[in-house]
């Protein structure tokens, strides 16, 4: 049935366009980036754009990171966190709260009972204030960063920041599930008033972690 439909659709397409002269692929004379690829500026810009979209952004050195994470979890009232396997244990040396790994794996209902998730990321895009997750070991499967209400994401700066969307895509693997996040979940469906926090994590905190290089 669908085979017949396939042949029919393809035949209709061919007869629809056969008289049309060839259309060449696009000339790409747009810019690769709208800003200079400068490490300091990239970090500043990412910080600013994330903040504008209502993410809470912090700066930290590796030494200060565990204390910062413990402080933020406490400030947000989180009692429990889920942590993907690839996140270093050392990040939690100052945390006393209940910590889950993705064992079982956790069901959606189990995840719903956990307050927060802490992950790394694949990269971040400065111009648009975007963090991209690709399911790497320090990010875990998609459900982990979706169901808990608070997501704290650590970006290694400046290494993980690229200036623009055209510079980000070649670094990402299409065969991995990708989630691009630009600020917390939001809706403008009610009289176009922006409301943060609908179905995804209602609170997004980003830690810009200073690393060498």
């Amino acid at each position, binding site marked *: 049935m669908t085979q017949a439909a396939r042949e029919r659709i393809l035949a209709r397409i061919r007869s629809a366009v056969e008289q049309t002269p060839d259309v060449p692929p696009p000339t790409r004379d747009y810019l690769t980036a709208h800003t200079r690829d400068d490490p300091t500026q990239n970090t500043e810009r990412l910080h600013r754009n994330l903040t504008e979209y209502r993410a809470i952004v912090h700066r930290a050195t590796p030494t200060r990171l565990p204390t910062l994470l413990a402080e933020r979890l406490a400030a947000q009232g989180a009692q429990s966190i889920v942590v993907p396997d690839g996140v270093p244990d050392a990040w939690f040396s100052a945390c006393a709260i209940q910590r889950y790994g993705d064992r079982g794996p956790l069901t959606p209902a189990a995840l719903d009972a956990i307050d927060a998730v802490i992950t790394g990321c694949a990269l971040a895009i400065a111009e648009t204030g975007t963090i991209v997750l690709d399911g790497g070991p320090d990010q875990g499967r998609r459900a982990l960063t979706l169901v808990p209400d608070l997501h704290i994401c650590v970006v290694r700066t400046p290494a993980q920041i690229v200036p623009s969307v055209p510079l980000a895509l070649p670094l990402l693997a299409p*065969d991995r*599930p990708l989630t691009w996040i630009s600020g917390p979940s939001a809706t403008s469906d009610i009289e176009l008033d922006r409301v943060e926090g609908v179905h995804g994590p209602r609170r997004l905190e980003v830690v810009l972690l200073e690393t060498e290089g």
Partner: protein
Amino acid sequence: MSDTFLGMPAFPQAARVALHNTTLRANLRHATHTIRAKRAQAVAELSDWEQLRDAGRQIKDHTLRHLDRYLIQLEQAVTESGGTVHWAVDADDANRIVADLVKATGESEVVKVKSMATQEIGLNEALAAEGITAYETDLAELIVQLGDDRPSHILVPAIHRNRAEIRAIFTSEMAAWGRAAPDGLTDSPGDLAEAARLHLREKFLRARVAISGANFMVAETGTLVVVESEGNGRMCLTLPRTLISVVGVEKVVPTWRDLEVFLQTLPRLSTAERMNPYTSMWTGTVDGDGPQDFHLVLLDNGRTDVLADAVGRQALRCIRCSACLNVCPVYERAGGHAYGSVYPGPIGAILTPQLRGTTSAIDASLPFASSLCGACYEVCPVAIDIPEVLVHLRERVVDQSGAGHRTESIAMAAVSWALRHPSVLATAERLATTTRALHPRRPPGVRAWTAGRELPELPAQSFRDWWKENHR
């Protein structure tokens, strides 16, 4: 199309009815003006906007010219990544395929991400006939579904409802669909969003089957892309075991790299953001992450007819950003429902008559539902010359009415046709603006638009009076 909004009056009548609804008009006006101002700013940030727009147009035109090749490539890539591809000639085909897939899972409920293609084919109604309940999860779609209503805007389907109306709908209807609205629900947008979150969360957590559309499909990789704000898309694309995506054939782009164009233009034009909160990309299935069973239903449903029309086919470039609605003076006054289809506004006026044909009164009147001011063309991120297609479709309507010999001026034909079809175009004299109608003003390009040109402020008045004043 099966979803023909049965019994819809033709556009002019529907528009006049809408004009008497002052809530609707006030909401639309507030909404479209808010989006417009923000959008101009988001676009002005990109100095290469024109080049991006040009590239978007070129990518789509190239894809459409070789659509057979790219669909086959897409099919192969999706299949190799563990997905299953189905082909649907029309709405009935697609609905049957989806219903069979859902039944095969043994489930009788599905969660849905907003998708115009599934609205176009009337999927929810078709599933209901098979005993399957489809829950809309986009906040606006939820408002529309609970209110037993029709969407009126591509991006903000409940733009015609204000907060007091939404509160009333939630309070009276939520309980019948699942978790009831909290007691003492106020009409603050934050509280309303929270009520929706609670109502839908129980559905997400137990859902086994999800149905989505897609904004883009990448032929070379087999990747599907969904762009959204609320996170209901992520929920549907991640938590259920089975995912069924119903996507129009024109949504394919050739390469991964092509996304760099549309991921820059779409969010800035649609929600006036540098980037929308969430974009999901997936390729087939991934062990241990997300749906383990993925089906892609490729939908024709009239698209190949549109493709066969050398002038009209540019409508297939559309990326559904909804910018043309927000700049359209006719849409602002008439509202989305007057267009009688899931595709309202200027894009609806050229897409619907091509997808469905121009045999019904509403569809035949749609090409006339425009003043040809050209604002839609100027703003469009893929440079669809909507006025050009409108004029082209007017010719078609006139021809099919039998009034026009090709020797007769199309303008005169339009007038005489309209005079003989008073129920379709009640005020035929307005078509005497024929010279203007046949020579759509060529706007100077998008820079002029983004430099701050806005539509003139028009006083609130009836569609008829407004039309008369502006169409002489």
